[in-house]
């Protein structure tokens, strides 16, 4: 028998070195995984913010416009119903005259541009806005008002760097002389780029006027759907969980229900869309494109999430609380509503908010129920408004990315930013609720 060679504890042997090395490798792999995730996030944020932040600013042409009573209100009654006969075409002519006059007054050289080309720098939405303003306040007729009107998306793109002189030379929708005139108008203070709240409040617009497109209808539609989801899924989900967790006997049936709820949570969302089309639209006869139908689909989708979260937080309430309540003579009902449910509330709310956040970003089921649509009228106030057509934030992103005009790319990214802000706010609220009210035993 030979004696093993003496080993020092201070000098690691081969096996220890190998183990240490493998630990270092694992650590590095973990760091690499985190780094990849971070890089992906940064790339995503940079591209979305880089493309989309500019959609919150818009280029306006601000000119004084004389609202000529002889054109706008021939009868002189200032009666909006009669004044409606003047279409946007009539207002367009008025605006063209005002624009040319304003250029002449400021001494801006218009070069060889024809009046139609100069007017072509204004958005087609501008006369419609002017008409709207006049019809809602007929007393404006006869006055001279200073009216900020949208410039077209190409002029807007020029001031944001998307359109250049070289690209304009090849572009059928704008020419370099118009851009040069835009520069001179900016120098004269007629054109400026400033914050555009309209991006959040205005409705969608057609391909001829991307500069006027906004998220107003989509935000309202999403909000309405979230109201429906909250109002339906929270009570139903909580009631179902309380029954399953606290009252139901444990047998084969409840096991089956439990498995099915877990399975439902994993069903692809488009399947819920098909179900909704058959059930709510074809059988129940609810209207197409309406937030109520969208809300009902998303409720179906969110329910399993809420039930699972609620059951988990009910389970986390220690049995001693229940025992104590029952021990001093509370009924089962009283135990649940006075003691268990309040303690489980932070967990339930967190689960609900996360479920809502998921529902807010969902677009696939809405495809089938007609919410991926061009909707320009705001839905009225709930509850009637729930049946009016509306759009939703994620589907607005989808439909803008399909439009031909490059200006819609910027707006789609802007819509993504708005959606991300809403999601972040909801997740932050969930974290705050959890931190604030959660109790540990």
């Amino acid at each position: 028998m030979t004696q093993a060679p003496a080993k020092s504890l201070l000098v690691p042997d081969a096996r220890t070195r190998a183990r240490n090395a493998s630990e270092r490798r694992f650590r590095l792999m973990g760091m690499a995984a985190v780094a990849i995730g971070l890089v992906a996030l940064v790339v995503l944020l940079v591209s979305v913010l880089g493309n989309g932040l500019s959609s919150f600013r818009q280029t306006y042409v601000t000119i004084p416009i004389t609202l000529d009573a002889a054109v706008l209100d021939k009868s002189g009654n200032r009666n909006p119903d009669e004044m409606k006969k003047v279409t946007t075409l009539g207002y367009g002519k008025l605006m063209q005259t005002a624009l040319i006059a304003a250029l002449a007054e400021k001494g801006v050289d218009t070069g060889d541009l024809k009046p139609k080309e100069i007017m072509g720098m204004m958005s087609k939405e501008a006369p419609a806005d002017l008409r709207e303003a006049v019809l809602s306040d007929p007393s404006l007729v006869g006055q001279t008002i200073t009216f900020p009107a949208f410039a077209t998306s190409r002029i807007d793109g020029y001031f944001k760097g998307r359109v250049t002189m070289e690209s304009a030379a090849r572009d059928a929708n704008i020419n370099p002389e118009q851009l040069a005139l835009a520069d001179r108008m900016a120098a004269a203070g007629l054109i400026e780029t400033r914050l555009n709240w309209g991006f959040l409040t205005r409705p969608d617009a057609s391909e001829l006027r991307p500069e006027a497109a906004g998220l107003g209808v989509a935000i309202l539609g999403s909000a309405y759907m979230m109201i429906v989801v909250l109002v339906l899924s929270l009570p139903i989900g909580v009631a179902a969980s309380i029954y399953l967790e606290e009252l139901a006997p444990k047998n084969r049936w409840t096991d089956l229900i439990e498995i099915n709820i877990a399975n439902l949570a994993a069903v692809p969302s488009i399947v819920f869309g098909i179900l909704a089309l058959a059930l709510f639209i074809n059988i129940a006869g609810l209207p197409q494109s309406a937030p109520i139908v969208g809300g009902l689909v998303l409720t179906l989708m969110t329910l399993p999430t809420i039930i699972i979260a609620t059951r988990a937080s009910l389970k986390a309430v220690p049995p001693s609380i229940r025992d104590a309540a029952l021990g001093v003579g509370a009924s089962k009902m009283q135990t649940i509503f006075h003691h268990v449910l309040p303690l489980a509330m932070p967990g339930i709310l967190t689960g609900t908010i996360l479920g809502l956040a998921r529902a807010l970003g969902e677009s696939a089921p809405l495809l089938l129920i007609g919410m991926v649509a061009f909707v320009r009228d705001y839905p009225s106030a709930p509850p009637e408004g729930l049946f009016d057509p509306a759009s939703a934030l994620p589907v607005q992103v989808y439909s803008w990315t399909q439009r031909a005009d490059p200006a819609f790319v910027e707006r789609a990214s802007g819509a993504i930013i708005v959606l991300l802000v809403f999601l972040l706010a909801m997740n932050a609220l969930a974290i705050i609720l959890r931190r604030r009210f959660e109790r540990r035993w």
Partner: protein
Amino acid sequence: MTIRFPLLSALMAALACGPAAARDNLQIAGSSTVLPYATIVAELFGENFDHPTPVVEGGGSGAGRKKLCEGLGEATIDIANSSSRIKQSDLDLCNANGVTGVMEVRFGYDGIVFAALRDAPEYAFTPAHWFRAMSARIVQDGALVENRLRDWAEVDPALPPQEIIAFIPGSKHGTREVFDHNVLLAGCKETGAYDLYAAAAIGDEEAVKKEAEKACLDLRTDGLAVEIDGDYTETLARVQANPTGIGVFGLSFYQSNTDRLRVYTMSGVTPSVDTIASGEYPVSRPLYFYVKLAHMGVIPGLREYVAFFLSDEVAGPDGPLADYGLVPDPELHKTQAMVAAEQPMEPLSQ
């Protein structure tokens, strides 16, 4: 907890009475090619009439026509946009569901253009070029052989030497039908492949024709003919990723992106609103929408919308639709008269 229940009961009340209230906005669905035109008209309609802005959905021509034929009533759509003509199967479905009066409205034409990035070389195409580049089999020394051409210069020495790669619309697109019929089939006949297919086919005259036409439309499967099932924005993205690629676009899409794309001639004609209207440019198709006549006078604004869509100031040569790339229909006045008479469409002659 206390605020939830009033909200819930309000919702229940709304559920009970809501759907009974009459729908006052139009519902339109269908072709994504017609979608931009329909949104432009809807926007103007909402602005200038006392009716709310119609709700316009995309989803594709076939899906739109199917929705139109789902039945009558407020839960169904009023108008289906379509970039190809309605099919007998759609009309059968309509009849089965009680939708009997359908009015066919042709409001203009759409050109289909071949375009590439700005700095791509110059091509002058003919249908025969496209057939030789895209087809599964081509004619060589009087016989059909598998297509192994990889370069446009091999297709025709007059074309610049550049690798063949083309992004064509997928089979669910209305655009594809036109591409098949006006380009591939024309090229097939021009190069003589059609006659060879017809000679090989068996059966009566009708069967031979069908067989040969079908064989003409077989595309090569080695990855040089890429079918795009999405919309033109996807085609554009693919062309940008493959600078040697050539894409098939709608004229209106090209007109919105002239700063990035250059367009190629077909049989010596440059596509434009004028050359398509005159019929010189060979690749174009009519655009339609189909109106449910039973909803006329029931859904408020339907009659006005259809008349407004077809009015000279909208669909005419100086209207906003032409600005966007619609080729105006020279027979617009006939259609206007037909719409005024609310004349249902004749049975398809086939």
